[in-house]
């Protein structure tokens, strides 16, 4: 009590104000809110404004052109192709990721043994699995550029020596439209798999042990337990992992920029890359902003779903 008596009078008016919850909470949150409003809110508004003008790289303003940039983009076959590819890349890579990650997470949470050798083995496996997530994406994609090289591809060397493809006409992974699509999907799936696995491990870890015990008592084991107990409980957090995956793939530019630059002949073009090439490289800010904004409905939908499922996870 003595300490309290001492502490009170020493504080100034500001300090006393900070002791009140009513003032303290807003004071602590305000800097974050202000900064986010300035660096996300304002640019987002600016992007919408730019998309309605004919602004070019030299200025921040332009003439109002209504929805011309949006209709102009839509009429361009390159844009259509970019839109289609963005959807294909996102769906295909996330389908692979969700399948792979559910299996991997399921086995990774199991007991690998108490012996120090088993622990070390598990640590090493986990390290190897985390590598694609931890490595900066632009760097690991350069690694894939070498793996898919036109002359010295290790994939082709292996295929040739297994007599699966001809030595004289090996596949050009980044030079033919369909193979380049497959290459990009591979890289996306490869880099997202560890993150999705980690999220799913979190989901599995949050299933209370009582549930597992109850399942055991009721005779639910093996596949039955997986189908009726584990999967339903894991579904909400798996959805969260997929929603993150969708955002990461749909808005990624690094993989496409480094692997193919949208080529050959714009066949692997994506919305982010097309917006970059239009807005930065060709200097047409307005049309570029419009192309990027076509991603906004997807993001809005994902955000809403994320909130719905976040609540569901909370209930379980």
């Amino acid at each position, binding site marked *: 009590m003595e*300490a309290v008596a001492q*502490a009170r009078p020493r504080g100034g008016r500001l*300090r006393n104000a900070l002791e009140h919850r009513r003032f303290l*909470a807003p004071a*602590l*949150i305000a800097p*974050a809110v202000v*900064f*986010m409003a300035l*660096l*996300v809110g304002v*640019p*987002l508004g600016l992007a919408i404004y*730019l998309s309605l003008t004919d*602004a070019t790289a030299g200025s*921040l303003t332009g003439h109002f052109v209504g929805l011309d940039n949006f209709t102009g983009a839509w009429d361009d076959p390159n844009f259509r192709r970019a839109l289609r590819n963005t959807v294909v890349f996102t769906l295909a890579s996330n389908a692979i990721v969700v399948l792979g990650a559910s299996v*991997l997470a399921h*086995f990774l949470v*199991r*007991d690998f043994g108490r012996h120090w050798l088993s622990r070390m083995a598990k640590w090493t496996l986990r*390290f*190897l699995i*985390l*590598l694609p997530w*931890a*490595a*900066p*994406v*632009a*760097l*690991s994609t*350069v*690694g894939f*550029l*070498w793996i898919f*090289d036109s*002359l*010295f591809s290790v994939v082709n*060397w292996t295929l040739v020596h297994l007599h699966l493809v001809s030595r004289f006409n090996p596949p050009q992974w980044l030079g033919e439209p369909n193979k380049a699509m497959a290459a990009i999907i591979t890289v996306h799936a490869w880099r997202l798999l*560890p993150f999705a696995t*980690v*999220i799913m*491990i979190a*989901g599995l*870890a*949050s299933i209370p042990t009582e549930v597992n015990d109850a399942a055991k008592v009721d005779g639910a084991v093996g596949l039955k337990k997986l189908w009726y107990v584990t999967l339903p409980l894991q579904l909400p957090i798996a959805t969260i992992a997929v929603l993150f995956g969708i*955002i990461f793939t749909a*808005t990624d530019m*690094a993989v496409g*920029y480094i692997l193919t630059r949208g080529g050959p002949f714009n066949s692997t073009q994506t*919305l*982010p890359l097309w*917006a970059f090439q239009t*807005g930065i490289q060709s200097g047409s800010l307005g049309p570029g*902003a419009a192309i990027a904004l076509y*991603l906004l409905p997807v*993001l809005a939908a994902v955000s809403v779903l994320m*909130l719905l499922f*976040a609540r569901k*996870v909370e209930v379980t």
Partner: protein
Amino acid sequence: MVSTRSKLANYLVVGPFAIVLAFPFYWMLMTALKSQGDLYSPQNVPFKFNAGSPTLDNVTFLFTDTQYLRWLGNTALVGVVVVLFTLIVSLPAGYALARLSGRWGRSLGVGIFLTYLVPPTLLFLPLSRVISELGLQDRLGSLMLVYPSFTIPFSTWLLMGFFKTIPQELEDAAMIDGASRLRTLRSVVFPISLPGILTVVIFSFSLVANEFVYAVSFISHSSSKTISTGIYTELIRGDVFYWGALMAATLIPSIPLALLYNAFLDRFIQGFTGGAFR
């Protein structure tokens, strides 16, 4: 007890995944240690070292004849500044969202999290204009200014998760002993959450090292680049490829990051799910 058979099954499933996921890094290592002659001879078996290999020539070339060290330094500098600024803003915000605010606190937390979902892809065009109006084009300052836009929501979210796991009683005890709330924060709450804060530091730093869109839009001057853009745009020129040096350049930052990820993974999961998915 878990049967040997079930353990074997674990290794048989997890092992192949690990091999596939880690293969590109094995390949980077092999390439980085090979001599030019070994690398580009079509008759050589690429899975083993041939004449002239293994060698550290590529690594030496990377550090002496390119600006690699400069890019590493730039990345570290931007990372440190951004992470410090992020902590100054996110620590109080994360704490307040976890503790002090009621009904609307949760919506605000979700709101800040949603800004994390607004990708650089949507913002880089207007921001590139703003950056050049501010005269920050080709300066690291442009990245230091813009990167907190994704590190702050991410860190606030994780920190909120960590703070929620600290028992309220600890704080109450300190305050009964006469400590002010700010003092309680400084000498009770922050020290206990140090592992959580460290996790936030590591993952925010890696977000900075990862960023590509802003870096490639704002900076074209070679000596101001970060590793994320420098390696690809500067080391691949026309038909001249330095694959050995390139692979060394991609491998060097990746390994320490993965070690840190592995060490702090459980904390990350705790913070990530503690935020609001719980």
